[in-house]
């Protein structure tokens, strides 16, 4: 009765949720409050602008989404562990059958906290670490002493066999730290993930762009192994439809209960305080996002780098206010991948 599948079972069920528009995955920022001051943080809204969802409201969100078929829940912030009711909310989600991921800076994880996290049986705890050197890490987090606390979190969680993930964004400040972080992750037997994408600030200012590493530097750090694109259409665009899973099988909720298709597609659709989530899931902007087609992407059509592009409609929306536009960030990444792959082929025949 365990179905043999040609696809990985997860892939098969994910495809089904995309085809049927079942909100399978939730990214939930429980708070905008944070104890660090990271230079690349996109969050510009005052943390006390509105009241965060109360625990009872959060429980209702969990119950509604469980009934709608949601399975994967990522709890993030801000710093989620600043919420005094974090463990009550997370435990309620677990009791409703959710698979949890927790994104944290790790600085508040002491022995007791690590034990409470272990009891939640999370799929993973992803912790941001920018360097193995305290001075470089803290030049990004803005808080002295944060490095030691974050490193302690990894060790405490690993001692309890919790799947702790080392996660880094590379910027000018830490562009030489990749190998050191990889070694750190290997020594602790933690998965290691990194990105070059610095998300624009929510207030629309683009002053975070100056933090991004140069295209040359990205090409040096990026490894082409495993990069795959399924094919390109006649118009020169990757053959992916839907263009992304946002609004098809995933959604985002803010600390104030605002519901959006994605963390980057923030156009008012409704809040859990005023409407059932099922109603917001069918609201006009969600439908508009679902209607996006390759033929809408006029700026991307015919792009010579399309085969190397992992295009994000949300980034385009944040950078240009138009989810049908090309994202300058993605254009840089696609150019970099193309150069890097072509060089790889020259070097390896």
């Amino acid at each position, binding site marked *: *009765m*365990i*179905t043999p*599948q040609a696809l*990985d*079972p*997860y892939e*098969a*069920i994910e495809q*089904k*949720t995309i085809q*049927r528009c*079942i909100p*399978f995955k939730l990214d939930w920022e429980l708070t905008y409050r944070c104890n660090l001051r990271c230079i690349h943080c996109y969050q510009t809204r005052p943390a006390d602008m509105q009241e965060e969802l109360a625990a009872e409201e959060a429980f209702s969100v969990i119950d509604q989404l*469980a009934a709608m*078929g*949601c*399975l994967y829940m990522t709890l993030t912030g801000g710093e989620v562990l600043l919420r005094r009711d974090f463990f009550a909310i997370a435990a309620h989600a*677990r009791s409703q*059958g*959710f*698979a*949890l991921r927790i994104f944290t800076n790790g600085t508040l994880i002491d022995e007791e906290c690590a034990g409470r996290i272990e009891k939640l*049986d*999370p*799929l*993973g705890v992803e912790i941001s670490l920018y360097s193995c050197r305290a001075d470089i890490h803290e030049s990004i987090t803005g808080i002295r002493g944060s490095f030691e606390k974050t490193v302690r979190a990894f060790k405490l969680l690993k001692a309890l*066999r919790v*799947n702790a993930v080392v996660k880094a964004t590379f910027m000018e400040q830490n562009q030489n730290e990749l190998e050191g972080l990889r070694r750190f992750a290997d020594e602790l037997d933690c998965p290691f993930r990194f990105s070059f994408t610095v998300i624009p600030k929510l207030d629309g200012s683009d002053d975070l762009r100056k933090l991004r590493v140069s295209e040359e530097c990205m090409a040096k750090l990026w490894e082409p192994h495993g990069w795959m694109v399924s094919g390109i259409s006649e118009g020169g665009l990757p053959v992916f439809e839907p263009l992304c899973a946002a609004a098809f099988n995933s959604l985002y909720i803010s600390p104030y209960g605002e519901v959006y298709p994605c963390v980057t597609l923030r156009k008012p659709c409704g809040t859990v305080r005023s409407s059932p989530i099922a109603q917001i899931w069918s609201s006009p902007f969600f439908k508009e996002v679902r209607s996006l087609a390759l033929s809408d992407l006029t700026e991307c059509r015919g792009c010579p780098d399309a085969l190397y592009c992992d295009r994000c409609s949300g980034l385009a929306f944040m950078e240009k206010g138009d989810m049908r536009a090309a994202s300058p960030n993605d254009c840089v990444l696609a150019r970099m991948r193309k150069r890097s792959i072509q060089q790889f082929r020259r070097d390896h025949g």
Partner: protein
Amino acid sequence: MHTETKVPERSASLAWRRIEDEVIIVTPCEGLARVLNASGSRIWELIDGVRSTADIVTELGREFDAPAGPAEEDVAAFLAELAQKKLVRFKE
């Protein structure tokens, strides 16, 4: 203890959801996802830590109008497979 009197219960550490006619089960410690077909999914939902294997067979017989004999063997084998994968355990 006879098979039919055993009471299965789901492992507390896993996550699961019904997606239409299938149940997907995620085991966080392994990072694995498994999918059950329609009849396996219904049995999974009937596992509540209270119903015995015989109770589950009776309930399925009522729902599917199936003869009790073969169903009991199938259900017992399925539950044993779930237990072997540590997705359920049998209460003492």
